């Protein structure tokens, strides 16, 4: 046993010696290697990244077909992007900025912050007062004032002195403390005046390349493989990164690698100015389409006025309107007309006004009751005019009451709840739903079906049509609603426009068939033909 233990001990000692000697060898080797590398090569064993090739053909120009405040920058990829050393990971777009711009923006933002506190709640007023002291003594604000003084502006509209700012804001705070709500609206004006300082910035931009007053700042990044970038901002001068129009800008592109210290800068391009365009050439196909449609409408309106018989195929839903009004008269029950949730500017609501006019005229003739609950106050005002005119046309102006068309509420489901209540209480003989409908379509139509009313619906909201199909007696699908107004009215203007629509559809059909044939048989011609219809915003 002892000999066995001794053997074990000896083998362990042997193993220990072996491990120690191995560690010693490796340590000395690394030490030697360290010494060698100190003298010959850099410490990192990873090979260093070579500076990538710079971008070429750099161009900066005003973005076309826009409202201004946008510059497009284009370039040819670096030779190391996807090829060569393949070291490029992105491109940083750099724009020359005068230092004072930062001060103006920072001072304006902090002033805006103070005023936001003033406007918010009374409890934040102490916070606003405290911040105001900080702003007025802060470097950005002082820089901004000295910038203004440097230009020796005679224009007093700026009215931007520390005394003025201090007094205006402290007066507002004092008014707030006395709870004078009228003055709450005065508070946000100061940043707007401060914005006027931005008007002076172009003069600073124009001083390039004076490196003592500005530097290149990053305004965006494009990943490798991308060859263009749009440097744009909103129109509002208070938006972040606002780009004023008609100012000289200078750009360069920095090619970036995985090592943030290794980048290659390009040549500088500029000056370039942004500006808005009056005419958006990308919308020319829309203009042509509207012109074609307008010409067709004018031709057919003239033909209709000359008494030409313009055939319109019967629409079951519209034919049923007269029948439904007659039914209501016989039953002595009212007619409910719902204009939907659209605004007075929606095409479907406008079409619905025409149908309402026709229904109201018949109602006045038959001396039936009409009820038009409205969702939108403007729609209500227009509908009142329409119904009033219809009653006058029918020779019964005395029968018109303002209550026929009435406002309910501007909340979707509250409106639905109220209309459902009306349906169940008044049990109208006929419900007409014409206009723009959303999630309430099935709720309304289902309640009307439960109440046993004849229901006629029409909308251009495609997702709602199936609900009207299942719950209504007659449904006008999409464009049938617009046709209905012409069909009912039989007025030359409406009939002419309906005919024009049909012919415009024929042109579209022909274009679609020609386009699809060309693109499948002669792809080159097809692509050209297709491009005639392309809309570029």
């Amino acid at each position: 046993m002892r000999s066995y233990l001794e053997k074990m001990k000896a083998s362990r000692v042997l193993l220990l010696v072996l491990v120690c000697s191995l560690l010693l060898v490796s340590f000395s080797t690394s030490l030697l290697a360290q010494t060698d590398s100190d003298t010959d090569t850099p410490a990192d064993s990873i090979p260093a990244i070579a500076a990538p090739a710079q971008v070429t053909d750099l161009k900066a120009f005003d973005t076309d077909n826009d409202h201004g405040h946008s510059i497009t920058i284009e370039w040819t990829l670096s030779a190391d992007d996807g090829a060569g050393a393949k070291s490029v990971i992105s491109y940083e777009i750099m724009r020359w900025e005068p230092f004072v711009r930062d001060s103006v923006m920072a001072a304006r933002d902090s002033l805006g912050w103070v005023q936001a506190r003033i406007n918010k709640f009374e409890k934040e007023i102490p916070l606003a007062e405290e911040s105001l002291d900080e702003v007025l003594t802060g470097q950005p604000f002082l820089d901004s004032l000295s910038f203004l003084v440097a230009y020796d502006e005679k224009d007093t509209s700026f009215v931007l002195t520390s005394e003025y700012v201090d007094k205006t804001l402290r007066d507002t705070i004092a008014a707030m403390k006395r709870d004078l709500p009228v003055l709450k609206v005065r508070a946000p004006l100061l940043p707007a005046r401060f914005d006027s300082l931005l008007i002076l910035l172009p003069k600073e931009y124009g001083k390039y390349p004076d490196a003592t007053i500005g530097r290149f700042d990053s305004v965006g990044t494009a990943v490798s493989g991308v060859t263009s970038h749009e440097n744009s901002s909103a129109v509002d001068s208070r938006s972040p990164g606002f780009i004023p129009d008609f100012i000289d800008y200078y750009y360069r592109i920095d090619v970036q690698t995985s090592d943030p210290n290794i980048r290659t800068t390009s040549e500088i391009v500029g000056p370039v100015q942004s500006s808005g365009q009056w005419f958006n050439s990308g919308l020319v196909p829309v203009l042509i389409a509207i012109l074609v449609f307008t010409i067709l409408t004018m031709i057919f309106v003239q033909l209709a006025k000359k008494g030409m018989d313009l055939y319109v195929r019967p629409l079951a839903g519209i034919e049923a309107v007269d029948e439904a009004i007659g039914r209501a008269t016989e039953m002595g029950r009212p007619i409910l007309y719902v204009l939907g949730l659209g605004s007075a500017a929606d095409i479907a609501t406008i079409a619905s006004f025409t149908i309402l006019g026709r229904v109201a005229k018949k109602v006045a003739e038959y001396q039936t009751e009409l009820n038009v609950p409205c969702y939108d106050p403007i729609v209500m005002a227009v509908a009142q005019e329409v119904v009033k005119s219809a009653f006058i046309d029918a020779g019964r102006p005395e029968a018109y009451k303002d209550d026929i068309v009435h406002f309910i509420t501007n909340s979707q489901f509250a409106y639905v709840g109220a209309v459902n209540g009306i349906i169940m209480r008044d049990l109208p003989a006929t419900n007409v739903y014409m206009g723009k409908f959303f999630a309430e379509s099935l709720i309304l139509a289902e309640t009307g079906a439960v109440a046993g009313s004849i229901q006629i619906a029409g909308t251009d909201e495609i997702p709602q049509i199936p609900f009207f199909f299942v719950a209504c007696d007659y449904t006008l699908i999409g464009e049938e609603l617009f046709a209905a107004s012409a069909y009912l009215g039989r007025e030359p203007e409406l009939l002419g426009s309906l005919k024009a629509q049909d012919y415009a559809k024929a042109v579209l059909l022909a274009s679609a068939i020609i386009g699809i044939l060309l693109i499948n048989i002669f792809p080159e011609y097809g692509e050209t033909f297709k491009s005639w219809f392309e809309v570029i915003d």
Partner: protein
Amino acid sequence: MEFTTFLWTTFAAFLTLAVFSFLYKDNPMYKFAEHLFVGVSAGYFVIILWHGALVPNLFKKLADGDWYLLWLNASEWWYFVPFILGVMMFARFFKKSSWISRWPLAMYIGISTGLAIPLEMANRVNRQLWAMMEPINWSSFWGERYLDIGSGYSELLIFVGTIAALVYFFFSKAHTGAFGAVAKFGIWTLMLGFGASFGFTVMARISLFINRIQFLDINWGQAAFDASGTANENYHAGFQALFWAVWLIFLVYAVFEFKKYLNSKDKPSQPESTQA
């Protein structure tokens, strides 16, 4: 949960049940919920208009002007024009001058229509037409992707379906003969789309219903019966009392309705001649 919070939850649960009760018939609980909802939303709408539209878009814009100069010395004085148009709307309240209110309405509709027409033409005509002109993958019909339903067949179906649907909306010609057959195919295509849309929306509505049931179960029912206090450390008997009080309202109404039904059953039906 605090008892005051539970009070509001119970009120919400009552309103939910009141609205559901419309499925039986119009009743006082539904009427209460309906009028409350309409009243609250109308009041809310006024406040939203005041703070969301009038204050930022009108009062703040003209605030640096003076009233005795009709705010024409304000930095953004042109906001005075919509202000005047808005005031003109009030002419509706006076019979003799109500015609004045037509001016702002005409302006509103004119501007909106002018904005809407190019947008509609671009989105619903030009872009649709442009997107339709795509090469059809003929290899689905013959070649390596033979009978691949996902590509060429659906492309062709979309094209033919669109053309046929457009034919259906042609109002200048009666739907007879070959033209009628194409129009019929068009309406079939439309119905296929409507069916899919209907199914999709019904599923969404059912998920809304499930959400309401979950609210009644978890937020209301479970909080009312959490005697162990695991989820509701402030639990006391008042929670349960409130829960049952809501059901009692509906129970009383059900008994009232049942009595009414029995009374109507006991009454002898009137002879037809008197009805006439």
